[in-house]
């Protein structure tokens, strides 16, 4: 029981469209959204840039429907990896609130589950899953508090992809038993977004139970965000940042322990 979150709004350079999508998300009752920057590491010369500051997007963020708060917008990085050597955590990661990885091979999936310092592992929805989900890596990911993501927009757009989405997520559920799953949109247009209760219902088709399906758009997303925070900070206990003042020497600032590690555990 937490606020509704959509962690996958596709980034476009078209600012107007992005604003439109975020307004629609706020209207549908999402309290937090993340703009997804995809970097395909297969292609050469792909650099992980710093994301644009979200505050440039709006002068005033749209109010979430039925609430008096404005919507929260975050940045997310998704790395498409097909070779293990491509994945190199860099400092740029820290400028994103959430980092996801889309492993293309079984070996990488294993590595992503067991060792990569990421928050989300994307599940293929536009093609047939090229490998089986094995229990050890999936359990490893669950233990580490990493979440699996299913995007539903391809299922709206195309009948074949709908089949892949459903069958891939069903085979994932056979292994993970509905734990550590989030459902997000991947929307490129406002009309592709769906309301949180609709998604909670759609989760039943993906093999989730009713409670798990609602958690997939709310509590699990909250856990992802907290997990992201632990990556940015030292386990969420110490937060270091540079002081911008030119005269002052670099100092470590200790913030109050906002997070306890236990809280990021999967729910």
């Amino acid at each position, binding site marked *: 029981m937490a606020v509704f979150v959509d962690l996958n709004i596709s980034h476009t350079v078209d600012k107007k469209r992005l604003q439109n999508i975020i307004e629609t998300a706020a209207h549908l009752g999402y309290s937090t959204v993340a703009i997804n920057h995809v970097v395909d590491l297969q292609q050469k010369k792909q650099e992980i840039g710093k994301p644009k500051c979200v505050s440039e997007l709006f002068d005033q963020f749209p109010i979430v429907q039925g609430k008096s708060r404005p919507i929260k917008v975050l940045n997310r990085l998704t790395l498409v990896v097909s070779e293990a050597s491509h994945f190199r955590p860099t400092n740029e990661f820290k400028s994103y609130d959430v980092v996801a990885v889309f492993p293309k091979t079984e070996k990488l999936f294993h590595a992503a589950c067991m060792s990569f310092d990421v928050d989300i592992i994307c599940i293929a929805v536009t093609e047939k899953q090229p490998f089986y989900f094995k229990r050890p890596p999936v359990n490893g990911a669950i233990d580490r508090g990493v979440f699996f993501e299913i995007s*539903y927009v391809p299922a709206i757009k195309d009948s074949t992809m709908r089949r892949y989405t459903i069958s891939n997520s069903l085979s994932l559920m056979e292994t993970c038993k509905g734990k550590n799953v989030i459902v997000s949109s991947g929307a490129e247009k406002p009309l592709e977004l769906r309301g949180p*209760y609709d998604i909670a219902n759609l989760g039943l088709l993906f093999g989730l139970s009713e409670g798990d399906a609602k958690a997939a758009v709310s509590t699990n997303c909250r856990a992802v965000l907290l997990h992201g925070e632990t990556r940015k900070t030292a386990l969420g206990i110490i937060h270091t940042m540079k002081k911008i003042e030119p005269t002052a020497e670099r100092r470590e600032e200790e913030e109050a322990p906002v997070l306890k590690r236990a809280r990021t555990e999967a729910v």
Partner: protein
Amino acid sequence: MGEHASYERLVFKNASVYHYMKIDLILESEDKRLNAAHFKQLIISALRDLYGEIGAAFPFDVLKFEEDTLTAVLRVYNSGLVKLWSALTLLGSYHSEPCAVRVTQVSPFLLALSGNSRELELD
């Protein structure tokens, strides 16, 4: 107290055989018109896409449809609720033009649809 009705109490669990849904159809271009029959046909075709001929055969009713606002109230058997709802969620186009269905409220009681406190706006 012979003249008055004697006290009687009944408790029903899952008494209602139906669920009711209040929905909005949103089309990209606003000049398209459709009537209740077209609307139902659209939903049936969405059901057929997702659940095939067998899925498209289950009954549901369009209790109310307003052509100017494209809002509707549907009635569906409990066993078909999840199917109908998910078909509406995955409905993405009408006559090859993007569209979306927004579900405003779902309830096992039709009366509850007439008093949704989430619609209260005091500003």
